[in-house]
């Protein structure tokens, strides 16, 4: 018995050592140290009962993450910093990051790739430098740009795009861009044209993370109703009936500043300029005193002017982590991805809710169903404009409307270029009939919320 045991023990010992090397070794040629990817490899190289049906354990998978997989991170702020760290420590090396902002001191409580000396520098650049230095082999490529600076050829190169944006408009634009990349063969969606979009958002102690497969699952616009519109106080309250300290600040911002032009002609209110904020604060305080309103502080003033959303490191960490886990699952097919929306709130204990957001049948962004606009011929163009901006499912910001009339492309109204706005403004008071629009006419609408024009079919009701 003893004799038989010895060779068996020996065999095991050798196996363990070889195992150890296999587990701890990894890719010798990429300059990695022993054991570097141990935590990751268990999910790439071992079969399991809960893996995605398409999952094949393989020692090549790590190579795909390290050498081939290309991820785009949008935003290098609270979520972006966390995303870059998480992706780098999960084996991703080819990462691009886009952010149009520079670093502000108020970012430092959570955007941990930045230091006081970095204030004023582009976020994307500093974030990329930090991660590339801290995580050997990682090659984050920064882009100090707006997302709108790039076109399809840029976005098409990525396997997965993950967003840590602070604006719904930007999200919708990104959403629209990926939808425009979809190709259909005989009405059937070509799966290879889908670039998954993983989107995270946070506000104070609340956050959400979602997985979007453009053309297949609910997109940003499908669930627009989940994003409540911003609170804007009524003008009459601000102008003549203030009750809250916020009303007093808005009065100074919207009415007194344009009138007094305290820092020179045409000098707009800059929320990041402490002198500007101080000016607004003092006058808002005076106004409040006139009405016996208490509570105007510098902090409140700044919060109202800049529409500040409170933020902490912890919520950003949680949401970015959830998003990064999904990126990993997508890239490795290791598990079935989140289907498809996670909500998080840790005000009272920790609360999460996971559900499947449904596609909207007639979504203006992803449904390919032509959008109808129903108006009587006597309706003014102004009403159409209001519908485009106020309708909960459209929520456009400053739509530009064009139509093909008598074979020519005619701009009916455009707000974003002053000279054209002036020229087309009279059209707002004209009726659709007066403008020469007919039933079934196609109207092309361009807006900041979408990279592609949205086509509407005009239905003239009687």
């Amino acid at each position, binding site marked *: 018995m003893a004799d038989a045991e010895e060779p068996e023990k020996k065999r095991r010992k050798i196996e*363990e050592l070889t*195992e150890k090397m*296999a*587990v701890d070794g990894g890719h010798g040629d990429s300059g990695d*140290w022993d*054991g*570097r990817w*141990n*935590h*990751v490899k*268990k*999910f790439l*190289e*071992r079969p*399991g*009962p*809960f893996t995605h049906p398409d999952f094949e354990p393989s020692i090549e998978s790590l190579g795909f993450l390290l050498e081939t997989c290309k991820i785009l991170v949008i935003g290098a702020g609270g979520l972006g910093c966390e995303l870059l760290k998480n992706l780098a*420590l*999960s084996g991703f090396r080819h990462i691009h990051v886009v952010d149009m902002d520079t670093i502000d*001191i*108020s970012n*430092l*409580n*959570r955007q*941990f790739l930045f230091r006081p000396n970095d204030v004023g520098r582009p976020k994307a650049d500093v974030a990329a430098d930090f991660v590339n230095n*801290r*995580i050997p082999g990682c090659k984050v490529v920064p882009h100090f740009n707006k997302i709108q600076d790039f076109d399809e050829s840029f976005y098409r190169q990525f396997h997965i795009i993950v967003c840590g944006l602070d604006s719904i408009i930007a999200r919708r634009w990104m959403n629209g861009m990926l939808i425009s990349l979809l190709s259909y063969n005989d009405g059937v969606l070509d799966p290879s044209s889908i670039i998954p979009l993983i989107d995270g958002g946070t506000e*104070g*102690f609340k956050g959400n993370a979602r997985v979007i497969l453009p053309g297949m699952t609910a997109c940003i616009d499908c669930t627009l109703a989940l994003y409540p519109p911003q609170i804007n106080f009524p003008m009459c309250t601000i102008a003549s*009936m203030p*009750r*809250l300290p916020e009303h007093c600040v808005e009065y100074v911002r919207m009415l007194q500043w344009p009138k007094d032009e305290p820092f020179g002609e045409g000098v707009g209110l800059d929320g990041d300029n402490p002198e500007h904020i101080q000016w607004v604060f003092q006058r808002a305080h005076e106004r409040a005193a006139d*009405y*016996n309103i208490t509570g105007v502080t510098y*902090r409140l003033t700044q*919060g109202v002017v800049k529409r*500040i959303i*409170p*933020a902490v*490191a*912890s*919520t*950003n*960490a949680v949401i970015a*982590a*959830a998003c*990064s*886990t*999904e990126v*990993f699952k997508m890239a490795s097919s290791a598990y079935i991805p*989140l289907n498809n929306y*996670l909500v998080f*709130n*840790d*005000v*009272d*204990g*920790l609360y*999460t809710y*996971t559900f499947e957001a449904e596609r909207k049948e007639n979504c203006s962004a992803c449904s390919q169903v032509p959008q109808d606009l129903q108006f009587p011929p006597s309706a003014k163009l102004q009403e159409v404009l209001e519908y485009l901006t106020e309708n909960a499912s459209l929520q456009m910001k400053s739509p530009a409307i064009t139509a093909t009339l008598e074979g020519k492309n005619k701009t009916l109204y455009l707000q974003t270029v002053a000279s054209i706005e002036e020229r087309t403004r009279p059209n707002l008071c004209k009726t659709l009939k007066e403008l020469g629009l007919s039933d079934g006419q196609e109207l092309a609408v361009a807006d900041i919320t979408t990279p592609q024009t949205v086509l509407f079919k005009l239905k003239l009701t009687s």
Partner: protein
Amino acid sequence: SKRTMAVTKASKDQKYDRQLRLWGDHGQEELENAHVCLINSTASGTEILKNLVLPGIGAFTIVDGHKVSGQDVGNNFFLSNNSIGRNRAQAATELLQELNTDVSGNFVEEVCVFNYEHTCLRLGSVLWNANIPFLVCRTYGLVGYMRLVVKEHTVIESHPDNALEDLRLDQPFAELKNHIQSYDLEGMGKKNHSHTPWIIIVAKYLEKWFSEHNFQFPKNYKEKEAFKQLIRQGILKSEKGTPEDEENFEEAIKNVNTALNPTKISSGVDDIFNGEQCNDITSQTPAFWVMTRAVREFVHNDGGGNLPVRGSIPDMIADSEKFITLQNIYREKAMQDASVVSKHVESLLQSVGKVCETLFCKNAAFLRVVRCRSLVEEYSVETVNKDAITSCMDSADGEMVLYLMLRSVDRFYQQHSRYPGVYNYQVEEDISKLKLCVNSLLQEYSLNVNVKDDYIHEFCRYGASEPHTVASFLGGSAAQEAIKIITRQFVPFNNTFIYNAMSQTTATFQL
């Protein structure tokens, strides 16, 4: 110098601005006076600390006797490959310290033999007796786990989402009653009529309703609808007889349902009032209980069974003067009530500070007390929470099975001095060994539940790995719970939290 201090304060205010808007300057002060201890600078550990260092915790100490391994560097942002072989606590302290110069970090090289159960129970007892909050966190494969162990944690500022207003329309105090009387809706001109606060409108129409309904409140859906109609009839009409656009009346109608909520003390707050600590006030009694007792005295002697008036009203359509005057009626009553509470505090024992009392009264309706069971109670056969475990296991794929698996892998460690499936060749053969551990666990606690084989396989597959993204999720979660304990704002969980990264779901159990 004074100037340097002022400059430092100003730049700290700027740096921490976004979080000061959540927990205020007083919360920040608590944070900056706090000292936390992290045991084992694993990825989960350093991620937790990162989320405490960034917001400016006073100090941290890392206790860890391990040497940095190649594997450690692979999943930990605060260990670099040139620290391989060095003490892990020291290496992590350096990179965490670098995040924020306001924070003081240090380390102790001490090995905690991590037989989880054994070590946690021993440490847990020491901390329990010393009244030091203990947060156990671990990442095991795609599972995150947190256990909060704190004997009693009181919260004044719980910051509830969607709190009901305290308008007292069912029991208007004298000053409010007089103020309502001063309005004559019928005799008002249009401008005043359209800018009368909805609170006044509801109050006036309530008086009308009373006189027609034998002093009974609108009780059911039908009566509330009728009440709303009564208000609607009060909307001014134009010369042609069509109703004018009176937004304040629409507001009144919209708010009828909540406005008619009876003023009463919630059962949660009632329980707090009936707490033991509330009865025996001594010089050792914490301020929270002294104030609770004072408010209780107020409720019974001065408040007619009600808490001190909160003093805030929501914004509503009204002209400035009417709104501010009404708001001040509530505010002044709240201040009056707070000073009566103050007198009770004085007569009870000690002065706890003026600011504290006003804050307490404002939040009296939202007080919370969290008491966690000790680890001994959780692990002891006599006191294990069998009901919670068994009923949660009705959904066999919920998070409870993950808890049982974590307990089981600890048993495996006790028996084999290692975790299951660390090396590839072990995965298959450890499944049956782990299953034995699961069964012995279930048997020991007489748990008549079934743990699917799939989970046993999955936990062997994990091989005690700690993927960074899961550690990071836990890091964010745990750090915020620590901040809640330190600042005494917002409400901590009680007492076991499980995160399942496969399904992106979580659950909280009281074990």
